[in-house]
Protein backbone atom coordinates (compact mmCIF):
# COMPACT_ATOMS: atom_id res chain seq x y z
CA UNK A 1 0.00 0.00 0.00
CA UNK A 2 1.27 3.43 -0.84
CA UNK A 3 2.09 5.36 2.26
CA UNK A 4 0.87 8.89 2.53
CA UNK A 5 2.65 11.34 4.72
CA UNK A 6 -0.07 13.17 6.57
CA UNK A 7 2.43 15.02 8.67
CA UNK A 8 1.47 13.82 12.11
CA UNK A 9 3.13 15.99 14.69
CA UNK A 10 2.72 19.33 16.31
CA UNK A 11 1.18 21.92 13.97
CA UNK A 12 3.30 25.00 13.69
CA UNK A 13 0.39 27.06 12.42
CA UNK A 14 -1.31 29.68 14.53
CA UNK A 15 -4.79 28.87 15.87
CA UNK A 16 -5.56 32.55 16.26
CA UNK A 17 -6.75 34.11 13.06
CA UNK A 18 -8.69 37.27 12.90
CA UNK A 19 -10.55 38.15 9.78
CA UNK A 20 -13.95 38.71 8.24
CA UNK A 21 -16.53 36.03 8.96
CA UNK A 22 -17.42 33.87 5.97
CA UNK A 23 -20.99 33.66 4.73
CA UNK A 24 -21.24 30.27 6.45
CA UNK A 25 -20.36 31.79 9.80
CA UNK A 26 -22.77 34.65 9.23
CA UNK A 27 -25.60 32.28 8.29
CA UNK A 28 -24.99 30.10 11.35
CA UNK A 29 -24.96 33.26 13.50
CA UNK A 30 -28.22 34.36 11.88
CA UNK A 31 -29.86 31.02 12.60
CA UNK A 32 -28.66 31.04 16.22
CA UNK A 33 -29.93 34.62 16.59
CA UNK A 34 -33.34 33.63 15.21
CA UNK A 35 -33.61 30.71 17.64
CA UNK A 36 -32.49 32.83 20.59
CA UNK A 37 -34.87 35.64 19.63
CA UNK A 38 -37.78 33.19 19.41
CA UNK A 39 -36.80 31.82 22.81
CA UNK A 40 -36.52 35.30 24.40
CA UNK A 41 -39.85 36.36 22.89
CA UNK A 42 -41.52 33.22 24.23
CA UNK A 43 -40.02 33.87 27.66
CA UNK A 44 -41.75 37.30 27.83
CA UNK A 45 -45.09 35.68 27.14
CA UNK A 46 -44.65 33.40 30.16
CA UNK A 47 -44.08 36.24 32.65
CA UNK A 48 -46.83 37.10 35.08
CA UNK A 49 -47.73 40.56 33.83
CA UNK A 50 -50.81 42.56 32.94
CA UNK A 51 -51.18 41.60 29.28
CA UNK A 52 -50.02 38.01 29.84
CA UNK A 53 -52.94 37.51 32.21
CA UNK A 54 -55.53 38.47 29.58
CA UNK A 55 -57.35 36.18 27.18
CA UNK A 56 -55.55 36.36 23.79
CA UNK A 57 -58.81 37.18 22.01
CA UNK A 58 -59.58 40.12 24.31
CA UNK A 59 -55.99 41.29 23.89
CA UNK A 60 -56.06 40.99 20.10
CA UNK A 61 -59.34 42.86 19.71
CA UNK A 62 -58.32 45.58 22.21
CA UNK A 63 -54.98 46.20 20.54
CA UNK A 64 -56.47 46.19 17.04
CA UNK A 65 -59.08 48.75 18.15
CA UNK A 66 -56.38 50.96 19.68
CA UNK A 67 -54.26 50.75 16.53
CA UNK A 68 -57.17 51.76 14.29
CA UNK A 69 -58.00 54.65 16.63
CA UNK A 70 -54.38 55.80 16.89
CA UNK A 71 -54.00 55.87 13.13
CA UNK A 72 -56.79 58.48 12.91
CA UNK A 73 -55.19 60.85 15.45
CA UNK A 74 -53.39 63.91 14.05
CA UNK A 75 -52.58 65.64 17.33
CA UNK A 76 -48.98 65.17 18.48
CA UNK A 77 -49.79 65.56 22.17
CA UNK A 78 -52.45 62.86 22.01
CA UNK A 79 -50.06 60.58 20.14
CA UNK A 80 -47.37 61.13 22.78
CA UNK A 81 -49.98 60.32 25.43
CA UNK A 82 -50.95 57.10 23.59
CA UNK A 83 -47.28 56.13 23.24
CA UNK A 84 -46.66 56.72 26.95
CA UNK A 85 -49.76 54.63 27.68
CA UNK A 86 -48.25 51.68 25.77
CA UNK A 87 -44.95 52.15 27.61
CA UNK A 88 -46.86 51.95 30.89
CA UNK A 89 -48.66 48.79 29.72
CA UNK A 90 -45.27 47.32 28.72
CA UNK A 91 -43.93 48.11 32.18
CA UNK A 92 -46.96 46.52 33.83
CA UNK A 93 -46.47 43.48 31.58
CA UNK A 94 -42.95 43.03 32.99
CA UNK A 95 -41.15 43.91 29.77
CA UNK A 96 -37.88 45.81 30.17
CA UNK A 97 -38.60 49.32 28.91
CA UNK A 98 -35.13 49.74 27.35
CA UNK A 99 -35.51 46.50 25.36
CA UNK A 100 -39.05 47.46 24.34
CA UNK A 101 -38.11 50.97 23.12
CA UNK A 102 -35.10 49.60 21.21
CA UNK A 103 -37.20 46.93 19.53
CA UNK A 104 -39.79 49.49 18.37
CA UNK A 105 -37.45 52.28 17.30
CA UNK A 106 -35.13 49.93 15.45
CA UNK A 107 -37.69 49.58 12.66
CA UNK A 108 -39.12 53.08 12.62
CA UNK A 109 -36.16 54.91 11.02
CA UNK A 110 -35.83 52.13 8.43
CA UNK A 111 -39.44 51.88 7.33
CA UNK A 112 -41.08 55.18 8.04
CA UNK A 113 -38.10 57.52 8.44
CA UNK A 114 -37.05 57.22 4.82
CA UNK A 115 -40.66 57.46 3.75
CA UNK A 116 -41.22 60.85 5.38
CA UNK A 117 -37.75 62.29 4.75
CA UNK A 118 -38.78 64.28 1.63
CA UNK A 119 -41.68 65.77 3.58
CA UNK A 120 -39.39 67.97 5.69
CA UNK A 121 -37.73 69.80 2.76
CA UNK A 122 -39.29 72.77 0.97
CA UNK A 123 -38.21 71.18 -2.34
CA UNK A 124 -41.24 68.92 -2.25
CA UNK A 125 -43.69 70.72 0.07
CA UNK A 126 -43.54 74.48 0.68
CA UNK A 127 -43.61 75.79 4.25
CA UNK A 128 -42.09 78.20 6.74
CA UNK A 129 -38.30 77.91 7.00
CA UNK A 130 -36.91 76.26 10.14
CA UNK A 131 -33.29 75.48 9.23
CA UNK A 132 -31.71 76.74 6.03
CA UNK A 133 -29.46 74.16 4.36
CA UNK A 134 -28.23 75.72 1.08
CA UNK A 135 -28.77 79.05 -0.61
CA UNK A 136 -28.92 78.39 -4.34
CA UNK A 137 -29.87 81.85 -5.51
CA UNK A 138 -32.61 82.79 -7.96
CA UNK A 139 -33.30 80.69 -11.06
CA UNK A 140 -31.69 77.46 -9.74
CA UNK A 141 -32.84 74.26 -11.32
CA UNK A 142 -31.95 70.56 -11.44
CA UNK A 143 -32.23 69.62 -15.12
CA UNK A 144 -35.69 70.57 -16.17
CA UNK A 145 -36.89 70.80 -12.53
CA UNK A 146 -36.85 74.35 -11.10
CA UNK A 147 -35.48 74.59 -7.53
CA UNK A 148 -36.38 77.20 -4.88
CA UNK A 149 -33.96 79.98 -4.03
CA UNK A 150 -32.94 78.29 -0.76
CA UNK A 151 -33.35 74.70 0.37
CA UNK A 152 -34.50 74.50 3.94
CA UNK A 153 -36.29 72.27 6.38
CA UNK A 154 -39.84 73.52 6.95
CA UNK A 155 -41.71 73.82 10.24
CA UNK A 156 -44.80 72.24 8.74
CA UNK A 157 -42.71 69.39 7.28
CA UNK A 158 -41.03 68.60 10.59
CA UNK A 159 -44.39 68.72 12.34
CA UNK A 160 -46.03 66.37 9.81
CA UNK A 161 -43.05 64.00 9.85
CA UNK A 162 -42.99 63.92 13.65
CA UNK A 163 -46.72 63.17 13.81
CA UNK A 164 -46.31 60.42 11.21
CA UNK A 165 -43.32 58.87 12.99
CA UNK A 166 -45.04 59.08 16.36
CA UNK A 167 -48.15 57.46 14.94
CA UNK A 168 -46.11 54.62 13.46
CA UNK A 169 -44.13 54.23 16.70
CA UNK A 170 -47.33 54.03 18.75
CA UNK A 171 -48.96 51.48 16.45
CA UNK A 172 -45.76 49.39 16.23
CA UNK A 173 -45.48 49.52 20.05
CA UNK A 174 -48.98 48.10 20.32
CA UNK A 175 -48.21 45.27 17.90
CA UNK A 176 -44.86 44.49 19.54
CA UNK A 177 -46.64 44.35 22.91
CA UNK A 178 -49.15 41.89 21.50
CA UNK A 179 -46.39 39.67 20.07
CA UNK A 180 -44.21 39.81 23.17
CA UNK A 181 -46.94 38.98 25.64
CA UNK A 182 -48.73 36.23 23.71
CA UNK A 183 -47.25 32.85 22.79
CA UNK A 184 -47.19 32.69 18.97
CA UNK A 185 -49.50 29.72 18.83
CA UNK A 186 -52.08 31.37 21.11
CA UNK A 187 -51.87 34.46 18.97
CA UNK A 188 -52.62 32.46 15.84
CA UNK A 189 -55.55 30.75 17.53
CA UNK A 190 -56.95 34.07 18.73
CA UNK A 191 -57.20 35.16 15.09
CA UNK A 192 -60.32 32.99 14.97
CA UNK A 193 -62.03 35.64 17.10
CA UNK A 194 -61.68 38.22 14.33
CA UNK A 195 -63.20 35.89 11.78
CA UNK A 196 -60.11 34.30 10.20
CA UNK A 197 -61.14 30.82 8.94
CA UNK A 198 -59.72 27.95 11.00
CA UNK A 199 -57.96 26.40 8.01
CA UNK A 200 -55.83 29.56 7.69
CA UNK A 201 -55.19 29.57 11.42
CA UNK A 202 -54.06 25.93 11.27
CA UNK A 203 -51.87 26.63 8.23
CA UNK A 204 -50.27 29.59 9.97
CA UNK A 205 -49.50 27.66 13.14
CA UNK A 206 -48.13 24.71 11.15
CA UNK A 207 -45.94 27.05 9.10
CA UNK A 208 -44.56 28.52 12.33
CA UNK A 209 -43.96 25.02 13.71
CA UNK A 210 -42.05 23.85 10.64
CA UNK A 211 -39.89 26.98 10.43
CA UNK A 212 -37.99 25.45 13.36
CA UNK A 213 -37.67 22.02 11.74
CA UNK A 214 -36.39 23.51 8.48
CA UNK A 215 -34.14 26.00 10.28
CA UNK A 216 -32.53 23.06 12.03
CA UNK A 217 -32.04 21.34 8.69
CA UNK A 218 -30.41 24.45 7.19
CA UNK A 219 -28.27 24.89 10.28
CA UNK A 220 -27.01 21.28 10.03
CA UNK A 221 -26.12 21.77 6.37
CA UNK A 222 -24.09 24.88 7.14
CA UNK A 223 -22.35 23.32 10.14
CA UNK A 224 -21.47 20.26 8.00
CA UNK A 225 -20.10 22.57 5.33
CA UNK A 226 -18.10 24.51 7.90
CA UNK A 227 -16.67 21.28 9.33
CA UNK A 228 -15.36 20.29 5.90
CA UNK A 229 -14.14 23.70 4.79
CA UNK A 230 -10.37 23.86 4.77
CA UNK A 231 -9.87 26.89 2.62
CA UNK A 232 -12.24 29.41 1.17
CA UNK A 233 -13.45 28.81 -2.36
CA UNK A 234 -14.34 31.42 -4.93
CA UNK A 235 -17.52 33.46 -4.72
CA UNK A 236 -19.03 31.67 -7.73
CA UNK A 237 -18.49 28.21 -6.20
CA UNK A 238 -19.98 29.33 -2.90
CA UNK A 239 -23.00 30.83 -4.62
CA UNK A 240 -23.46 27.58 -6.54
CA UNK A 241 -23.38 25.68 -3.24
CA UNK A 242 -25.94 28.00 -1.64
CA UNK A 243 -28.20 27.68 -4.70
CA UNK A 244 -27.99 23.90 -4.49
CA UNK A 245 -28.83 23.94 -0.79
CA UNK A 246 -31.83 26.21 -1.36
CA UNK A 247 -33.13 23.72 -3.92
CA UNK A 248 -32.48 20.82 -1.58
CA UNK A 249 -34.30 22.56 1.28
CA UNK A 250 -37.27 23.17 -1.01
CA UNK A 251 -37.37 19.50 -2.03
CA UNK A 252 -37.11 18.40 1.60
CA UNK A 253 -39.89 20.79 2.63
CA UNK A 254 -42.16 19.51 -0.16
CA UNK A 255 -41.46 15.92 0.85
CA UNK A 256 -42.13 16.80 4.46
CA UNK A 257 -45.40 18.58 3.61
CA UNK A 258 -46.59 15.44 1.84
CA UNK A 259 -45.75 13.30 4.84
CA UNK A 260 -47.37 15.76 7.27
CA UNK A 261 -50.52 15.60 5.17
CA UNK A 262 -50.41 11.80 5.39
CA UNK A 263 -49.94 12.01 9.17
CA UNK A 264 -52.99 14.26 9.36
CA UNK A 265 -55.07 11.96 7.17
CA UNK A 266 -53.96 8.99 9.23
CA UNK A 267 -55.58 10.60 12.26
CA UNK A 268 -58.87 11.34 10.53
CA UNK A 269 -58.33 14.70 8.79
CA UNK A 270 -60.30 14.90 5.57
CA UNK A 271 -60.08 18.53 4.50
CA UNK A 272 -62.30 19.94 7.25
CA UNK A 273 -60.24 20.65 10.31
CA UNK A 274 -61.60 20.63 13.86
CA UNK A 275 -59.60 22.34 16.57
CA UNK A 276 -60.18 22.67 20.29
CA UNK A 277 -60.94 26.05 21.84
CA UNK A 278 -59.26 26.30 25.19
CA UNK A 279 -59.80 30.01 25.82
CA UNK A 280 -61.93 31.21 28.69
CA UNK A 281 -63.06 34.85 29.01
CA UNK A 282 -63.02 36.12 32.58
CA UNK A 283 -64.26 39.38 34.08
CA UNK A 284 -60.88 41.05 33.81
CA UNK A 285 -60.85 40.27 30.05
CA UNK A 286 -64.20 41.98 29.60
CA UNK A 287 -63.02 44.97 31.68
CA UNK A 288 -59.76 45.26 29.71
CA UNK A 289 -61.64 45.00 26.41
CA UNK A 290 -64.16 47.63 27.51
CA UNK A 291 -61.40 50.04 28.59
CA UNK A 292 -59.48 49.59 25.33
CA UNK A 293 -62.54 50.06 23.17
CA UNK A 294 -63.68 53.12 25.16
CA UNK A 295 -60.21 54.61 24.82
CA UNK A 296 -60.27 53.92 21.08
CA UNK A 297 -63.64 55.65 20.73
CA UNK A 298 -62.33 58.70 22.65
CA UNK A 299 -59.26 58.84 20.39
CA UNK A 300 -61.43 58.73 17.28
CA UNK A 301 -63.75 61.44 18.70
CA UNK A 302 -60.70 63.62 19.43
CA UNK A 303 -59.34 63.08 15.94
CA UNK A 304 -62.67 64.13 14.49
CA UNK A 305 -62.70 67.25 16.71
CA UNK A 306 -65.91 66.11 18.38
CA UNK A 307 -64.07 66.20 21.70
CA UNK A 308 -61.66 69.11 22.01
CA UNK A 309 -58.51 68.90 24.11
Amino acid sequence: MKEVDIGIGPCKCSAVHRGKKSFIGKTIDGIIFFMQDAFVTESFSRRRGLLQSLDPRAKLISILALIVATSTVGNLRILVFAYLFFLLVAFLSKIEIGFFIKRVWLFIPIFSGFLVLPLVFNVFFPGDPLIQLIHLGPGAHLGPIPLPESIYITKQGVNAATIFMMRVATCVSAIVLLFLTTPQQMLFKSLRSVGIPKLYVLTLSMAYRYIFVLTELVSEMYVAKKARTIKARGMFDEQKWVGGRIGYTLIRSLDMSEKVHMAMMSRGYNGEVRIIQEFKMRNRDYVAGAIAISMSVVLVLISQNIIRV
Partner: protein
Amino acid sequence: MEAIFDLRNVSYSYVGKIDALKDITLEIDRGELVSIIGSNGSGKSTLLAILNGLIYTTSGEFYAFGNQITEDAFDAIKDNEFRTFFRTKVGFVFQNSDVQLFSPTVFEEIAFGPLQLNVTPEEVKTRVEDVLDMMDITKLRDRSPHTLSGGEKKKVCIATVLVNNPDVLLLDEPSAGLDPRTQLWLVELLQELGQGGKTVITATHDLEIIDQISKRAIVMGEDHAIKEDGDADKVLNDYELLLGANLIHEHTHVHGKVVHEHLHEHVEGHIHKHET
Protein backbone atom coordinates in the same frame (compact mmCIF):
# COMPACT_ATOMS: atom_id res chain seq x y z
CA MET B 1 -58.97 -16.02 13.59
CA GLU B 2 -60.51 -13.04 11.88
CA ALA B 3 -58.32 -11.39 9.24
CA ILE B 4 -58.02 -7.64 9.73
CA PHE B 5 -55.89 -7.01 6.68
CA ASP B 6 -55.94 -9.03 3.50
CA LEU B 7 -53.63 -8.16 0.63
CA ARG B 8 -54.04 -10.03 -2.63
CA ASN B 9 -51.27 -9.71 -5.22
CA VAL B 10 -50.64 -6.11 -4.26
CA SER B 11 -48.07 -4.09 -6.16
CA TYR B 12 -47.21 -0.43 -5.83
CA SER B 13 -44.98 1.77 -7.92
CA TYR B 14 -44.14 5.44 -7.49
CA VAL B 15 -45.16 7.57 -10.49
CA GLY B 16 -45.84 4.29 -12.29
CA LYS B 17 -42.13 3.67 -12.79
CA ILE B 18 -40.27 2.96 -9.57
CA ASP B 19 -41.38 -0.33 -8.02
CA ALA B 20 -41.83 -0.21 -4.27
CA LEU B 21 -43.88 -3.39 -3.73
CA LYS B 22 -44.23 -6.43 -5.96
CA ASP B 23 -46.97 -9.00 -5.79
CA ILE B 24 -47.56 -8.98 -2.04
CA THR B 25 -50.08 -11.50 -0.74
CA LEU B 26 -50.61 -11.74 2.98
CA GLU B 27 -53.22 -11.82 5.69
CA ILE B 28 -52.89 -10.35 9.15
CA ASP B 29 -55.24 -11.58 11.84
CA ARG B 30 -56.65 -9.75 14.83
CA GLY B 31 -54.27 -9.71 17.79
CA GLU B 32 -51.20 -10.75 15.78
CA LEU B 33 -47.79 -9.28 16.57
CA VAL B 34 -45.97 -8.91 13.28
CA SER B 35 -42.60 -7.50 12.27
CA ILE B 36 -41.96 -6.44 8.72
CA ILE B 37 -38.23 -6.58 8.24
CA GLY B 38 -36.09 -5.64 5.31
CA SER B 39 -33.15 -3.50 4.32
CA ASN B 40 -33.47 0.19 3.44
CA GLY B 41 -35.65 0.74 0.37
CA SER B 42 -37.19 -2.75 0.41
CA GLY B 43 -40.74 -1.36 0.67
CA LYS B 44 -41.55 -1.68 4.38
CA SER B 45 -42.78 1.90 4.77
CA THR B 46 -44.78 1.70 1.56
CA LEU B 47 -46.46 -1.46 2.81
CA LEU B 48 -47.39 0.27 6.07
CA ALA B 49 -48.75 3.29 4.16
CA ILE B 50 -50.98 0.95 2.15
CA LEU B 51 -52.13 -0.81 5.33
CA ASN B 52 -53.05 2.62 6.73
CA GLY B 53 -55.00 3.63 3.62
CA LEU B 54 -52.67 6.54 2.91
CA ILE B 55 -51.70 5.34 -0.55
CA TYR B 56 -53.53 2.94 -2.81
CA THR B 57 -52.37 -0.18 -4.61
CA THR B 58 -51.22 0.18 -8.20
CA SER B 59 -52.50 -3.34 -8.83
CA GLY B 60 -54.02 -6.08 -6.69
CA GLU B 61 -56.60 -5.78 -3.93
CA PHE B 62 -56.41 -4.63 -0.34
CA TYR B 63 -59.17 -5.44 2.16
CA ALA B 64 -59.34 -4.06 5.68
CA PHE B 65 -61.98 -5.25 8.14
CA GLY B 66 -63.64 -7.03 5.21
CA ASN B 67 -63.98 -3.87 3.09
CA GLN B 68 -61.98 -3.21 -0.03
CA ILE B 69 -59.89 -0.05 0.24
CA THR B 70 -59.85 1.90 -3.00
CA GLU B 71 -59.09 5.53 -3.67
CA ASP B 72 -62.61 6.25 -4.95
CA ALA B 73 -64.30 4.84 -1.88
CA PHE B 74 -61.82 5.99 0.73
CA ASP B 75 -60.49 9.36 -0.34
CA ALA B 76 -63.72 11.26 -0.99
CA ILE B 77 -64.03 14.58 0.83
CA LYS B 78 -67.56 13.89 2.03
CA ASP B 79 -68.13 12.11 5.31
CA ASN B 80 -67.52 8.42 5.08
CA GLU B 81 -68.61 6.15 7.90
CA PHE B 82 -66.16 3.37 7.11
CA ARG B 83 -63.23 5.79 6.85
CA THR B 84 -64.04 7.18 10.31
CA PHE B 85 -64.26 3.61 11.63
CA PHE B 86 -60.96 2.68 9.95
CA ARG B 87 -59.12 5.78 11.25
CA THR B 88 -60.38 5.05 14.77
CA LYS B 89 -59.31 1.42 14.62
CA VAL B 90 -55.91 1.82 12.93
CA GLY B 91 -53.14 4.06 14.26
CA PHE B 92 -49.88 4.84 12.50
CA VAL B 93 -46.65 5.97 14.17
CA PHE B 94 -44.40 7.56 11.53
CA GLN B 95 -40.65 7.06 11.39
CA ASN B 96 -39.91 10.79 11.47
CA SER B 97 -41.61 12.15 14.58
CA ASP B 98 -41.49 15.70 13.24
CA VAL B 99 -43.98 14.95 10.47
CA GLN B 100 -46.44 13.64 13.02
CA LEU B 101 -46.08 16.54 15.44
CA PHE B 102 -47.57 19.49 13.59
CA SER B 103 -49.66 21.08 16.34
CA PRO B 104 -48.64 24.00 18.58
CA THR B 105 -48.58 22.06 21.84
CA VAL B 106 -48.41 18.44 22.98
CA PHE B 107 -51.97 18.68 24.33
CA GLU B 108 -53.36 19.87 21.01
CA GLU B 109 -51.30 17.31 19.13
CA ILE B 110 -52.84 14.45 21.08
CA ALA B 111 -56.30 16.04 20.84
CA PHE B 112 -56.08 16.41 17.03
CA GLY B 113 -56.97 12.80 16.17
CA PRO B 114 -60.12 12.32 18.27
CA LEU B 115 -61.34 15.81 17.31
CA GLN B 116 -61.20 14.90 13.61
CA LEU B 117 -63.08 11.70 14.41
CA ASN B 118 -66.05 13.63 15.85
CA VAL B 119 -65.39 12.94 19.52
CA THR B 120 -66.90 15.70 21.68
CA PRO B 121 -64.41 18.30 23.04
CA GLU B 122 -65.18 17.32 26.66
CA GLU B 123 -64.49 13.66 25.93
CA VAL B 124 -61.33 14.63 24.00
CA LYS B 125 -60.00 16.57 27.00
CA THR B 126 -60.59 13.61 29.33
CA ARG B 127 -58.97 11.17 26.92
CA VAL B 128 -55.93 13.39 26.38
CA GLU B 129 -55.37 13.81 30.12
CA ASP B 130 -55.70 10.03 30.55
CA VAL B 131 -53.21 9.18 27.83
CA LEU B 132 -50.76 11.84 29.09
CA ASP B 133 -50.96 10.21 32.48
CA MET B 134 -50.66 6.68 31.09
CA MET B 135 -47.54 7.56 29.08
CA ASP B 136 -46.13 9.56 31.99
CA ILE B 137 -45.75 12.69 29.88
CA THR B 138 -48.14 15.05 31.70
CA LYS B 139 -45.23 17.43 32.28
CA LEU B 140 -44.94 17.89 28.49
CA ARG B 141 -48.61 18.93 28.19
CA ASP B 142 -48.07 22.56 27.18
CA ARG B 143 -44.67 22.18 25.53
CA SER B 144 -44.15 22.95 21.89
CA PRO B 145 -43.01 19.88 19.86
CA HIS B 146 -39.80 21.57 18.67
CA THR B 147 -38.57 21.81 22.25
CA LEU B 148 -38.85 18.05 22.90
CA SER B 149 -36.03 15.49 22.81
CA GLY B 150 -36.11 12.58 20.34
CA GLY B 151 -37.41 10.15 22.95
CA GLU B 152 -40.08 12.57 24.17
CA LYS B 153 -41.20 13.17 20.59
CA LYS B 154 -41.59 9.44 20.03
CA LYS B 155 -43.63 9.10 23.23
CA VAL B 156 -45.93 11.94 22.13
CA CYS B 157 -46.29 10.35 18.68
CA ILE B 158 -47.39 7.08 20.25
CA ALA B 159 -49.75 8.98 22.57
CA THR B 160 -51.38 10.70 19.55
CA VAL B 161 -52.26 7.25 18.28
CA LEU B 162 -53.20 5.56 21.56
CA VAL B 163 -55.65 8.34 22.44
CA ASN B 164 -58.08 6.76 19.94
CA ASN B 165 -57.62 3.35 21.57
CA PRO B 166 -57.04 1.69 18.19
CA ASP B 167 -57.19 -2.08 17.64
CA VAL B 168 -54.29 -2.00 15.21
CA LEU B 169 -50.99 -0.20 15.59
CA LEU B 170 -48.65 0.34 12.67
CA LEU B 171 -45.17 1.49 13.61
CA ASP B 172 -42.48 2.53 11.16
CA GLU B 173 -38.96 2.06 12.56
CA PRO B 174 -40.10 2.97 16.08
CA SER B 175 -36.75 2.27 17.75
CA ALA B 176 -34.65 4.31 15.31
CA GLY B 177 -32.66 7.03 17.04
CA LEU B 178 -33.85 6.18 20.54
CA ASP B 179 -31.49 5.81 23.47
CA PRO B 180 -31.29 2.30 25.04
CA ARG B 181 -33.55 3.26 27.97
CA THR B 182 -36.32 4.60 25.70
CA GLN B 183 -35.89 1.57 23.41
CA LEU B 184 -36.53 -0.74 26.33
CA TRP B 185 -39.55 1.33 27.36
CA LEU B 186 -40.88 1.04 23.81
CA VAL B 187 -40.41 -2.75 23.71
CA GLU B 188 -42.23 -3.12 27.01
CA LEU B 189 -45.07 -0.89 25.82
CA LEU B 190 -45.50 -2.89 22.61
CA GLN B 191 -45.47 -6.12 24.62
CA GLU B 192 -48.16 -4.75 26.93
CA LEU B 193 -50.26 -3.64 23.97
CA GLY B 194 -49.87 -7.10 22.44
CA GLN B 195 -50.95 -8.73 25.69
CA GLY B 196 -53.94 -6.38 25.71
CA GLY B 197 -55.12 -7.90 22.43
CA LYS B 198 -53.94 -5.21 20.03
CA THR B 199 -52.62 -6.05 16.61
CA VAL B 200 -49.12 -4.58 16.42
CA ILE B 201 -47.35 -4.38 13.06
CA THR B 202 -43.83 -2.99 13.19
CA ALA B 203 -41.59 -2.22 10.25
CA THR B 204 -37.99 -2.39 11.41
CA HIS B 205 -34.47 -3.49 10.62
CA ASP B 206 -33.52 -3.57 14.27
CA LEU B 207 -32.97 -7.32 14.62
CA GLU B 208 -32.44 -7.04 18.37
CA ILE B 209 -36.07 -6.23 19.14
CA ILE B 210 -37.91 -8.44 16.65
CA ASP B 211 -38.39 -11.53 18.80
CA GLN B 212 -39.39 -9.33 21.74
CA ILE B 213 -42.17 -7.48 19.93
CA SER B 214 -43.44 -10.02 17.43
CA LYS B 215 -44.25 -13.66 16.89
CA ARG B 216 -44.41 -13.47 13.13
CA ALA B 217 -41.83 -11.92 10.81
CA ILE B 218 -42.30 -10.94 7.19
CA VAL B 219 -39.00 -10.47 5.38
CA MET B 220 -38.99 -8.08 2.44
CA GLY B 221 -36.32 -8.67 -0.15
CA GLU B 222 -34.48 -6.06 -2.14
CA ASP B 223 -36.69 -7.03 -5.09
CA HIS B 224 -39.65 -5.52 -3.11
CA ALA B 225 -41.35 -8.90 -2.78
CA ILE B 226 -41.92 -11.03 0.32
CA LYS B 227 -38.92 -13.31 0.82
CA GLU B 228 -40.22 -15.14 3.88
CA ASP B 229 -43.29 -15.01 6.06
CA GLY B 230 -43.14 -17.12 9.20
CA ASP B 231 -42.26 -17.59 12.82
CA ALA B 232 -40.07 -14.73 14.09
CA ASP B 233 -37.64 -17.07 15.91
CA LYS B 234 -37.15 -19.21 12.81
CA VAL B 235 -36.56 -16.16 10.65
CA LEU B 236 -34.00 -14.76 13.07
CA ASN B 237 -32.13 -18.07 13.08
CA ASP B 238 -32.04 -18.33 9.29
CA TYR B 239 -28.60 -16.87 8.64
CA GLU B 240 -28.74 -17.39 4.88
CA LEU B 241 -32.15 -15.73 4.64
CA LEU B 242 -31.06 -12.64 6.59
CA LEU B 243 -27.85 -12.46 4.58
CA GLY B 244 -29.80 -12.79 1.32
CA ALA B 245 -32.18 -9.99 2.36
CA ASN B 246 -29.13 -7.81 3.06
CA LEU B 247 -30.18 -7.45 6.66
CA ILE B 248 -26.92 -8.68 8.07
CA HIS B 249 -23.28 -8.51 7.12
CA GLU B 250 -21.08 -11.56 6.61
CA HIS B 251 -19.45 -10.69 9.90
CA THR B 252 -22.74 -10.82 11.79
CA HIS B 253 -23.11 -13.80 14.09
CA VAL B 254 -26.27 -15.43 15.24
CA HIS B 255 -26.09 -17.31 18.53
CA GLY B 256 -29.60 -18.51 19.16
CA LYS B 257 -31.57 -15.32 19.55
CA VAL B 258 -28.50 -13.16 19.98
CA VAL B 259 -27.36 -11.39 16.86
CA HIS B 260 -24.10 -9.51 16.98
CA GLU B 261 -21.25 -8.50 14.78
CA HIS B 262 -17.55 -7.90 15.15
CA LEU B 263 -14.46 -7.65 13.07
CA HIS B 264 -12.31 -10.77 12.79
CA GLU B 265 -9.71 -12.40 10.61
CA HIS B 266 -10.98 -14.86 8.06
CA VAL B 267 -9.07 -17.83 9.48
CA GLU B 268 -12.18 -19.83 10.36
CA GLY B 269 -14.43 -18.57 7.58
CA HIS B 270 -17.54 -16.48 8.10
CA ILE B 271 -19.71 -19.12 9.73
CA HIS B 272 -18.13 -20.34 12.93
CA LYS B 273 -18.86 -20.94 16.56
CA HIS B 274 -17.55 -19.17 19.61
CA GLU B 275 -16.38 -20.72 22.79
CA THR B 276 -18.83 -19.43 25.35
